[in-house]
């Protein structure tokens, strides 16, 4: 038998150290849990998970500050660049908060912690994916644990409903994604994004009645379309958003906290990489596709958020809306625009995590606690919680000078500089509508308290600290936007892939 010589891939373990840290932590958690009684020591395991996440974040920062980036590993199928590392940090922050929020809740268990970490690994791999197969594997690794996590309150029918709904639609979207990736592979004959980009740059413009390689161009167009559809599900873009409100309402708040930021970051990261590496150089009309998606997402997300009475549903629709902004900024297709999107995503993560942390603390795990009417008079019962929540909501409504405003400003600047004025007007129309949406809970918090409402649950120290840190961060990033502009500037300067893809 004559076998080809197989060379083991050169793996730079230092480059994937954040992922390895999470993997080791999750396995250790399961191993330790073997020797603990089921109901005992969850708190210690949660701290262990938090420590693992912090180690991962630390090695991430070391990578970001060091001179190794940008670099590829696993034979060019993973790329580590500032874009990926910055987004990794956001994902890790979301995972950390999810672990902290779950520590005192019924959903806390070794499985919960391990699944959260695995999902985070999937997200981190996804933003680094530079290969179609790795991309798909990462999507599955991030999704499968989330399906299970959504069902972590089996005592609630809504939690199970959320899990089933999310699973069915997620599996459906994976099909779209896989088909799209297969078509792209068919066009290019390779799975590495560099190969795909090279192949797509040469296909003719896709016109059904034109001359030339009609078939190839059409397949490329359909492939890109299907990939965008598949990622649109993960990003919660309209019309692929139907799962969002129900899943947000039903799933445990800590899980929603994690996935509302994590999935969005991961999907944006991979879409930005695809735009930058593959789409921009191709002759396919991807801008029209993304523009339509962005306009629909922004308008539908904003309008549907208005009548919501449930805070988690409201934030679900707000998540849809913000996904629209992210898609919109990608239409420009420049690296400055990607940097604007990353900046927006960082600020969005801060305020969204904060808002969910407050919801989790105020509701105390009760279904009734997530209704907006529960927030009446919060300012007179827990003034600082209310002030923090006001900061998060105002920032989400992009009221200056909070973090969210500058995120929106950079997006607007990118759109206007890219002569995408229609998208710019859509973005501010969405903003104008959401101000009304976030105004309602804001008014409730400062209204006289409802005498019948039960007392608020006591807030765990870790959660209070997290909320405080996030609120301070939202204000500080707003007052000193230059602090993370430098970081994001790095993303735009080095760019997701320059010097690697040869573009």
């Amino acid at each position, binding site marked *: 038998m004559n076998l080809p010589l197989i060379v083991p891939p050169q793996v730079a373990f230092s480059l994937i150290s954040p992922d390895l840290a999470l993997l080791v932590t999750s396995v250790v958690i399961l191993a330790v849990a073997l020797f603990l009684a089921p109901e005992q020591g969850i708190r210690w395991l949660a701290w262990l998970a938090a420590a693992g996440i912090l180690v991962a974040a630390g090695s991430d920062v070391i990578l970001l500050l060091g001179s190794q980036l940008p670099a590829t590993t696993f034979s060019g199928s993973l790329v580590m660049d500032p874009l990926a590392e910055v987004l990794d940090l956001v994902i890790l922050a979301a995972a950390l908060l999810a672990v902290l929020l779950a520590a005192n809740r019924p959903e806390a268990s070794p499985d919960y912690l391990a699944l959260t970490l695995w999902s985070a690994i999937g997200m981190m791999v996804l933003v680094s994916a530079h290969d179609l197969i790795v991309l798909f594997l990462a999507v599955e690794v991030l999704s499968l644990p989330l399906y299970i996590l959504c069902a972590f309150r089996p005592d609630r029918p809504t939690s199970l409903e959320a899990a089933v709904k999310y699973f069915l639609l997620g599996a459906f979207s994976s099909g779209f994604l896989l088909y799209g990736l297969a078509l792209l592979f068919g066009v290019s004959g390779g799975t590495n994004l560099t190969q795909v980009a090279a192949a797509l740059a040469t296909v003719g413009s896709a016109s059904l009645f034109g001359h030339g390689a009609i078939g190839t161009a059409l397949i490329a167009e359909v492939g890109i379309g299907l990939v965008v559809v598949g990622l649109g599900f993960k990003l919660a873009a309209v019309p692929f958003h139907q799962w969002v409100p129900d899943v947000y309402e039903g799933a445990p708040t800590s899980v929603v906290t994690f996935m509302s930021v994590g999935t969005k970051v991961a999907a944006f990261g991979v879409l930005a990489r695809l735009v930058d590496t593959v789409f921009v150089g191709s002759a396919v009309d991807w801008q029209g596709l993304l523009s339509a998606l962005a306009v629909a997402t922004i308008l539908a997300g904003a309008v549907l958020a208005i009548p919501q009475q449930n805070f988690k549903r409201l934030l679900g629709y707000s998540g849809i809306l913000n996904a629209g902004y992210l898609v919109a900024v990608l239409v420009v297709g420049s690296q400055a625009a990607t940097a604007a999107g990353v900046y927006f995503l960082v600020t969005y993560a801060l305020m969204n995590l904060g808002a969910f942390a407050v919801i989790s603390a105020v509701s105390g795990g009760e279904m009734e606690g997530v209704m907006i009417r529960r927030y009446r008079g919060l300012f007179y019962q827990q003034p600082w919680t209310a*002030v923090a929540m006001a900061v998060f909501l105002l920032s989400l409504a992009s009221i200056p000078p909070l973090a969210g405003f500058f995120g929106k*400003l950079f997006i*607007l*600047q990118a759109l206007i500089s890219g002569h995408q*004025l229609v998208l710019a007007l859509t973005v501010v129309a969405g903003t104008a509508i959401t101000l009304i949406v976030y105004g309602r809970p804001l008014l409730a918090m400062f*209204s006289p308290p409802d005498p019948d409402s039960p007392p608020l649950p006591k807030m765990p120290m870790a959660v209070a600290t997290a909320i405080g840190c996030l609120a301070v961060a939202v204000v500080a990033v707003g007052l000193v936007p230059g602090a993370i*502009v430098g970081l994001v500037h790095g993303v735009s300067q080095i760019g997701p892939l320059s010097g690697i893809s040869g573009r």
Partner: protein
Amino acid sequence: MLVLLPLILLTLGALAPLFLGRQARAIRLVSLVFSALALVAAVVGIAQAPQQVNLPWLPALGLSLSLQLDGLSMFLVALTALATLAVVAFSDETERPAGYYSLILLMAATAVGTFLSTNLLVFYVFWELMIIPGYLLIGTYGQGPDSRRAALKFLVYSLVPSAFLLVAIVTLAVAAAPAIGHLSFNLDQLLAVHLPAATQNWIFLLFAASFMVKVPIWPLHAWMPDAYGESRPQVAAMLSGVLSKTGLYALIRFAFPLLPEAARLFAPALAVIALISILYGAWIALTHRDGRMVIAYSSLSHLGLVFLGVVALNALGLDGAVLQMLNHGIYAVALFLLFGMVEEAAGTRLLAKLGGVAGRAALFAGFLWITVLAALGLPGLNGFAGEFLLLLGIFRTSQVWAWIAIAAVIFSAAYFIRLFQLTAQGATEVELIRPLRLSPIRFAVLVPFVVLMVYIGFAPAQVTSRVQPVAQSIARLEARAALTQPVGNYSWEASRQ
């Protein structure tokens, strides 16, 4: 530093109540002290002006914290501090004091910020932030049954145009960037750029819509009756005395100088709108049964006249506009607060049920009488000086406009005297639930108002001479625009790179 001082003091004053819990008296005292200090700082600022600060904020985006105290802004800053002091003195919130006083001072701080900023983006920051305290004050400290709806209306009317204002601001900066060499939001640099007319026009429309809502000018005034009617008189005083000025100020400071050709193009249309505002406001004020609404609609009419003076686009009109903004602020705040005391004492604000206050509280009625006289433009008091100058400026641009506007001035005497008669005089004696007594603090706060009414009435040049240089430079900009070649084209069409 002196420029920043009122802003810092009012912001600190807004934060202080959060640390004082439910101690209503302490919170009120702290708010009084901070607004009084801000007033002192602003008055010193008038003496030391012009001054400016330039602190880098976000250089990558051409964003610097540029604040300027000049003839245009210094009186409005002082007015804001004075109005805040009066509003706090006339407030008596004991149920939920922390939120109330904090929001009032926050509103004042953001208004001061809009008056001072000479960077468009910094201006926008304050402009947008100003809406939040207004929304919360109307919505959660409202008086009427529909205060939440009124708050929502205020929010929608304020926020929708100002969201689009951001697009206009960023487009302006992006369009001007090639001429400047980098992205900049600084007024000085943007003023030097002459944009093509097509770009100017739609940016100007977005600017004007957003600013006119805040004044308000017909037909963008629909939020005003609800907001003024459902909120407390103190909040209404803040909205009418201070917030309305930010809109007019922004028109004078930004919209007209930055976009001179568009301003010239739209000036006749805006003048018609202003005239409708003047007449419509006067007519409603003449017939309304609700006393507070009479004051509200009189503001619509008077500020319409100020707007007409701005639209006249000459130095005299601008000078008069700034003077009359100050005057209106003084007498509108006093009117809302004094009539608010009557409302509280009588338990109603329907003019038919009021009357005879003069017999019960002579001193109070005296203050009300002087304020009403100042408001209706009696020569020798401040209202007259402002109106005279405004009409002179309008007359230079168009005699027709001026004659129609003069008609409105006559109306104004009619409705204010009706207001006073039905409140303070007359045969019907109102049943007072509470005694109408001016506390020493309130008396002390009212004295400077009366002094100013008389002082500006006799010596308006103290104000106008300081406004004049700025007004003239703005008027010159309008005239110069036609002479230079436009640069920095910005088109709607998406261009693919």
